[in-house]
């Protein structure tokens, strides 16, 4: 039953990533088309633009959610792929805890920096 919920979360985070990462991709990589449509998205990788987004609570919340959804979806998918090659219960446990620890560390680091920049 637990695996059913974990798999359901995999499907739900997949859809949520498509939305949040889609917004990020369009903003970062379709700047010419957005500018032609009258939306100011010029030079999204410049320092000024990056700092402006870092101070906007909407962008910060979007990126933190994207990080959470992305880490869960990617690391759970990676765990499933590794599990296909490993039958030992003990090694599977080590893999699960290693991936979980890595995910928590990456999420902590990935949220620490935007929150520090938001408060600057």
């Amino acid at each position, binding site marked *: 039953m637990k695996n059913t919920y974990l798999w359901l979360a995999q499907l739900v985070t997949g859809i949520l990533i*498509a939305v949040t990462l889609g917004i990020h991709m369009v903003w970062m990589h379709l700047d010419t088309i957005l500018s032609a449509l009258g939306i100011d998205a010029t030079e999204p990788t410049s*320092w000024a633009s990056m700092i402006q987004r870092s101070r906007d609570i909407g962008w910060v919340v979007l990126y933190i959610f994207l990080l959470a959804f992305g880490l869960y979806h990617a690391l759970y998918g990676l765990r499933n792929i590794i599990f296909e090659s490993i039958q030992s219960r003990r090694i599977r446990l080590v893999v699960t805890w290693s991936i979980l620890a890595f995910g928590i560390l990456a999420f902590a680091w990935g949220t620490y920096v935007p929150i520090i920049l938001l408060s600057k």
Partner: protein
Amino acid sequence: MKRMQPHKSNYLGILGWIWGGNYRIERYLYTLHRVTGLGILLFSLIHLCVTTFFRMQQDSWEAAMTILHNPWFKLGEYLVVIAFAYHSLNGLRLILQELGFGMGKPVPPIYPYRDSLRKSRRWSMALIGTAAVISLVFLYDFIVGG
């Protein structure tokens, strides 16, 4: 209860991703789904490091961005965009099929058999077409925007 172990001689491992018998297009789409997923994971971890370590100082940020605007990095970035477009659309197809949408009603197994996956192949074709259109839109911006 003793756990069932897969028979070792029947186990293909990662080579089975490439060839394991009479594969159809959906099986290769699934393999590509995994490969693009692993690629996006690798890129995301590098991206997370770059956008956090170099974000504290303007000089280091601008130096990092100068390196990343190299044409080879731009090409790599474009490949990630294609991978994302493919992975998200194929993922949506897999979710719809897993939940039973677009599979048609179950029918008795009377010869000649029709499997539901082949009946819903139009979804696969629509996915490939949409991913190609999205990739072309991004390619236009990569070329025009630099």
